[in-house]
């Protein structure tokens, strides 16, 4: 670290903080999971961008309602954001932030938790692309995919892809009434809690 200035590796403070979380040996403290859901403009990690992120923490088999995160991003390239979401953002008076700010806040929230999402690989790749645009490295968090957990529980072939709605139907979880990132993150968290118990993780 002392040679950072020499190597020209002038990393921003938040990234250093984030990286340092993975240095120390934290194996003995309570495992924290962060379940998140992202609204995106599309499915191409290189071309498409993040519209909003909702995330919620799970510690010791319970969703910590206060451990909550939601952010909306300003869009420059695209203007495909749904009017419904616009209305929601307006109603709740939430401000939108630029992508860099969103990444800083998200990493500050996620810390070294295990990241959990539905079909998570695409989301992780989108975040990595956003980090790359900031000249930073890739995400370091361990990840878990609810789709993969579901397949494992059902002992289905790896190739099956179920949507979040299909999964919540299969597990008899009420879908969120609002299709927002945070609402979907909450549903994903319930799915995760169920699968976690069933699989004994």
């Amino acid at each position, binding site marked *: 670290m002392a040679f950072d200035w020499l190597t020209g590796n002038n990393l921003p403070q938040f990234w250093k903080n984030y990286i340092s979380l993975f240095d120390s040996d934290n194996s003995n403290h309570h495992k924290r999971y962060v379940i998140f859901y992202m609204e995106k403009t599309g499915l191409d990690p290189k071309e498409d961008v993040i519209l909003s992120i909702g995330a919620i923490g799970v510690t010791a088999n319970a969703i910590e309602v206060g451990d*909550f995160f939601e952010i909306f991003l300003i869009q420059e390239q695209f203007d495909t954001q749904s009017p419904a979401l616009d209305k929601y953002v307006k109603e709740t008076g939430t401000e939108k932030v630029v992508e860099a700010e969103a990444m800083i806040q998200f990493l500050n929230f996620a810390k070294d938790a295990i990241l959990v999402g539905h079909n998570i690989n695409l989301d992780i790749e989108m975040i990595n692309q956003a980090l790359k645009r900031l000249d930073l490295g890739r995400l370091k968090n361990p990840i878990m995919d609810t789709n993969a957990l579901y397949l494992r529980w059902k002992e289905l072939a790896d190739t099956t892809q179920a949507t979040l709605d299909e999964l919540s139907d299969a597990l008899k979880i009420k879908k969120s009434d609002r299709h*927002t990132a*945070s609402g979907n993150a*909450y549903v994903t968290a319930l799915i995760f809690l169920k699968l976690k118990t069933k699989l004994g993780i």
Partner: protein
Amino acid sequence: MKNPVAQSIADFLKRYPPFISLQYDELLAVAEQSKVIYLEKNQVLFKGGEAIHSDFYVVKDGVVGLSVTSDAEETLIDKCDEGDILGLRPYFAKNDYLMTARSREEAIVYGISFAAFQPYFTENVNVLAFLLESFASQTRNPYDKERQGKLVTENMIFSEQVADIQYFQPIKYTRNPITANPDDILKFIAKSMSNSAVGSVIIQENQLPIGIITDRDLRSKISTGLFPIEIDARTVMTSPVITVPENISVAEAQMIMLKHNVGHLCVTRDGSDKSPVSGIISEHDVVAAQSNTPGVLLKQTRRATNAKELKYVREKLTDLIQNSIDTNIPISHISNIVSEINIALTRRSIELSVEKMGTPPPVRFVWMNIGSQGRKEQLLLTDQDSALIFEDVAPEIYDDVKRYFLELAEMVTEYLEKVGYEHSPSGLLASNTQWCKSLSDWVKQYNTWINTPAEKGVELSTIFFDFDFIYGAPALENVLTENIHEKINHNKKFFAFLAADTLRNPAPLGFFRQFLVENDGEHKDSFDIKSRALEPLIDAARLLALTHNLTEITNTYHRYKKLAELEPNNAELYDECAEAFNVLMRFRTEEGLLNNSNGRYLNLNELSKSDKVKLKNCFQPINDIQDMIKNRFSLTYIN
């Protein structure tokens, strides 16, 4: 940051007490510190004996069962579903969980942090009131009408819980007690005490309590002749009076009474005798707070001022019956106690109605309970049957008098309906113009029944021979019963018809000793215990008792016991009938309590094999007694 998850939890919580009484932003703050927990089927949320968690729980979806484990056996005590609260008690009792909470099916529960909710326990009056009420009434949610009167706990924990909560439960006491001035004459004080059915009067001067006069003072100072009855209160009163603050707990009240050896405590605004009186606590209140004893229920009935209070007593009575059944108290003892309280309930309804009428009754009258109430066999909330007899009046005022009593009876039956007794399906009510009439009309009515018992007439009239006079003038009762005695004495025609009627009930067993069940209708395939088993016994008892001119005993069990005494050669059969009747009553009562019904139809599939045998054993005496009636009244040719 807005937290939509917390919002949706707050939206859920605000529909249920005690959260109802919180402001939305307060609720949101609580929700933000809450947890969402998923329980797999049969997963344990907390275990009896475990130290208390940092949260209490509210069921969001699914069902969580509360159970106790004793002797390695888990007994389910209660089921909690949407909106029900669990795990609150240990926080107040300051001890470990008493019961084990285990999900009966997949469930989602919210964990509400004690730390976050703490301020509302102490500061929000409504929240506190809700909690105290739910602990006191032993149900999770005292406002939940459907579940009211249902016990959360069995006896074992019942007492334990009461003991636990005693220490923080404020005692219920009489507010705005009767007071008197120190210069008042004792005689008048005693009069107002007995008018209001209280045991004490606080003597106050300038709004401050300076002494108290209790039953004890009257007994020891007046009745013994120590002082004349015209003396002023100041001389006789016990002074100073022991004063306590408002919101004193049951335990504290009891301690203070023991310490000062007094039976009454005066409640004042700040607890000293230098502030205005706000209430009085008697020993009765202490007892009442600790248990639902029959005596306390009777007292509560006598002091009830509206239908709601009477309903409360009846609900407590259901708990008492459930408890007694559980602890195997003989059914005839239970019936005795229950009928006393039932009678008190009807009496109080009549008194309240008379008060409401505004004018006292124009002439003397008698209120008669008939049918199961008249036989003192009503354990479940079945229908009310009653009749009213008023004194003979001049023909020109007859209509006015009758109108008064019809109106009165209407009120009484309405009160009783509010308490939970449905109207008689056949309209056998005192508020029915046919069954509210003058004494001589009633005598005529009975004579018609006795002398010309047409089939239809007899069917309607049999329950009129199970009457219990519960309110009014004994003189009228005597005239009526003497007339009945005289008319039925050796009246062969009357008894023959009564006997035929008795034998008309369907038999309980078929040729192959199988249960005869209902063939069609709503209760297809269930056993009608009322008409196939209980009614034959009741009818036989009535018939035989009437042949011996026993009109004063109406209870079926006691009728058989008396018959056994009168006819020693048949004593064995009568005793068997009495026993069979008790067993059948227990079956019906258990069924009724279980399904919250009138217990008339037993589902045979739910009975254990030994219960079925027990039930069948009751049928032999029915056959035997019916055979005896056939022979005695030479009815073979009728059937």
